[in-house]
């Protein structure tokens, strides 16, 4: 029972820890507000100077280019420039929303996201729990290194490996043909494409995804486990009452971030396989924007589509964060 009385504290405690990067804890806040902006500036000068390089980097490579989004309201052509391209108000947005091809791309994107949320997202958690139960450090680090490795392969390589293994002329089919069994071509079957890209993602990135969960697991106070063992809790109860509650803030944080990325599903991975399975199942927002904008030269249309994607993603993150707060979780950030 000790575990149960202690576990509710994990949430708030983590909240303070994650939100508490600010210089003051909750009790000091009223005092902090009275300090003038100037005084605060003087006090934090060295810290501010230290963040300057990052801020400049953000400004130059993230905020200045954002101004280019103005072409979403133009009939932009790179050959005449932003200044000379005619202004068309909301035309491009109207066209994006009335384009069946775009809506189809959105649908594909959401289907892929939903599928991967169920079949990809939990896998690193499970892997981390399994790995955490391995006691011998040498075995643990070996396994860790092996499962991290595919993350460093490029998508071109991953897809080539899959093609060489599971393609119609691949290893598996050659072995099958050798035994007289008729082969299958997993790489060109649009019906199983969801499964295929999810398998590729799992193979490539599931290992990498466990890092953050392992870190969270390592922060659990061993005395909690010891106390629960004394209270007679078995392995499952310990996981249910100690391990999982400790992981909860991290899982929720990653879920919220994933939601912000809901409209982004592996551009490279999909564009590389677009010809193999056809655009019907593989066209997502990002590939659609690329073909419309860069290949077909409709830059403004593509920008409008991209901008809408960005705004919707932001709303999703804010909404999910709000939801997390309402459920008493820390979320991505907190208002002071």
């Amino acid at each position, binding site marked *: 029972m000790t575990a149960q009385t202690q576990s509710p504290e994990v949430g708030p405690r983590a909240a303070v820890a994650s939100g508490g990067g600010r210089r003051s804890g909750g009790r000091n806040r009223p005092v902090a507000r009275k300090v003038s902006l100037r005084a605060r500036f003087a006090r934090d000068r060295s810290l501010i100077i230290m963040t300057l390089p990052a801020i400049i980097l953000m400004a130059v490579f993230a905020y200045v280019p954002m101004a280019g989004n103005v072409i979403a309201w133009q*009939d932009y*052509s*790179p*050959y*005449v420039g932003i200044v000379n391209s*005619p202004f*068309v*108000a909301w*035309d491009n947005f*109207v*066209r994006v929303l*009335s*384009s069946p*091809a775009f809506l189809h791309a959105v649908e594909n994107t959401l289907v892929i996201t939903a599928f991967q949320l169920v079949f990809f997202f939990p896998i690193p958690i499970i892997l981390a729990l399994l790995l955490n139960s391995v006691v011998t450090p040498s075995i643990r680090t070996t396994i860790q290194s092996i499962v991290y490795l595919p993350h460093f392969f490029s998508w071109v390589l991953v897809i*080539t490996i899959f*093609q060489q293994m599971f*393609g*119609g*002329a*691949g290893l598996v*089919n*050659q072995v099958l*043909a050798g035994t007289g069994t008729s082969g299958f*071509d997993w*790489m*060109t079957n*649009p019906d199983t494409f969801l499964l295929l890209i999810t398998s590729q993602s799992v193979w490539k990135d599931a290992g990498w995804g466990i890092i953050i969960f392992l870190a969270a697991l390592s922060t659990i106070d061993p005395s909690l486990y010891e106390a629960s063992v004394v209270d007679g809790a078995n392995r499952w109860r310990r996981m249910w009452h100690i391990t999982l509650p400790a992981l909860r803030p991290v899982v929720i944080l990653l879920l919220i971030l994933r939601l912000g990325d809901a409209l982004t599903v592996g551009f490279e991975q999909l564009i590389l396989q677009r*010809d*193999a*399975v*056809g*655009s*019907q199942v593989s066209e997502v927002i990002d590939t659609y924007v690329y*073909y*419309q904008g*860069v*290949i*077909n*030269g*409709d*830059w403004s*249309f593509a920008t409008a589509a991209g901008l809408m994607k960005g705004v919707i993603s932001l709303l999703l993150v804010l909404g999910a964060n709000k939801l997390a707060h309402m459920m008493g979780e820390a979320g991505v950030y907190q208002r002071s």
Partner: protein
Amino acid sequence: MTPTPRRLTAQSRRTFLTLIGAGVLGSTVLAGCRTEGGGASSDPTTAGAVADGVLPTYTALDYVEPDFPSVNGSTAGFATIPAELVQAFDAPPGSGSTFTAMTPLWGAIPPSTGNQYYDAVNEALGSTVKFQISDGNTYGDKLAAVLASAADVPDWVCIPTWNIPPRFDQAVETLFEDLTPFLAGDAISQYKHLANIPTDVWKFCVFDGKLKALPFPGEIITDAIFYRDDIFAEEGITELPTDGQALLDLAKQLTGGNRWGANDLWNTAVIIHGVVPKWQINDDGTLTHRYETDEYRAALEWNAALFSQGSVHPDAVANTGDAKQRFESGEVLISNDGVGGWHEALGRQLATNPSYSQRPFTPFAADGGSPVLWKGNPANIISFLKANDDKAKIEEQIAIADFLASPYGTTEYALINSGVEGVHYNLGDDGLPIPTELAATELQPTYIFLADPPVVNTKVQYPGFVEAFCTWMADASQYVQDPAFFGMQITEPNEFGSLAQPMTDLESDISRGRKSMDDLDPAIENWRASGGDELRQFYQDILDAQ
């Protein structure tokens, strides 16, 4: 010299179909709200028309007579090397500048440093051309990005006509030098090799009433269906197909084990069904688009049959890997390619596999009747010079182009096409050059894409090739017909840019059985509604103005 793969891959086919296209400003409902992107070329009455004053004066120049003369416009060929080569340039034409040049290549990219071929040609030019070579199969994508950023545009840009990016009418206006003042009329007389290029070819280099480009002249037949005659002989196959069904049967018969009958033969389907390149002019003077023709429908059905009977290599089904590599390694025995792909394959293979051989099928029609081959553009690959305030630089580039256009029988031509004796080739007992292994890596089509003499076949280094090529094309030339709007450089308005994309995807989907023929009619209906009918009107106006 001829370029390699033409409209072979899905990518280049896609961009070819959007030909000379245009941005994408789609919906017609909103079209009224914005200004038209194009210049005068958007006006159908002037599109494709060329004022006489713009074209250079043609002055024929013959150093040697071909052994295989042209028949009905087919490519003439040489089987021997003239005893005495003429040196056309006493001094290098260049004045020491360095120019960057972007060109496509369908093959392994040669080393840029320590390349003895580049060094020798640059020395003869008196200027340095630094190549930025990109994969030909994805050249259009690269080009679209490079042209969009004016600072990144090289001094010399080669653009295959099927890769012309959207809104090109604007690009050509702002990015590239107008060559009219340098070459129009008699101005060309100081460049005698450029003056030797026929007027029809130059006509294809005119954009918006200005001479804008330098040509790589094309052949009247651009594509062929090749088979591995060496392997056919081993297998004892002597009867070659004479109709579509026979080709399907042959492909099926050849498939087995780790060998497949064919690559994606969409282009073959188009050829044997005689599908028009773009428009068909009906008896009453109206236009029918290729998508709307019975031939197109039949071609799709044929290609779908080929895929569904399992004769296509799985990597071709997945559209990955290198189709040429599969064909040359013998994994696939039938493949379509640009006619220039023939000698390029010989160049890659003969050094290591002397018995390697491929041949084109004698043209046949799917129904066994008389085939129709649509005439290729007078120039399929053209090159542009980046606009430069320093006119001396432009003149230097044109002088280099004049050097590159030196015809067969000159030392200049020999250098550009065969490299350096003792390094890239050695003369055999019969006086014909035998390429070295270094030639297979260094001697890739590069300079020729910037400017080239009128097309002739001079690949004497591959035994028997010139004769086989020229007799095949001389025979095939009897089936060649002019397509509608032949030889006209027409820039379509921007809003039609993305029209072809869904149809190109559909071609791939139906061929591979992901969609059925029932999906074709709704797609054509959608094509008409989303701009196809307007595109038809655009061309109809051009036709009526003729």
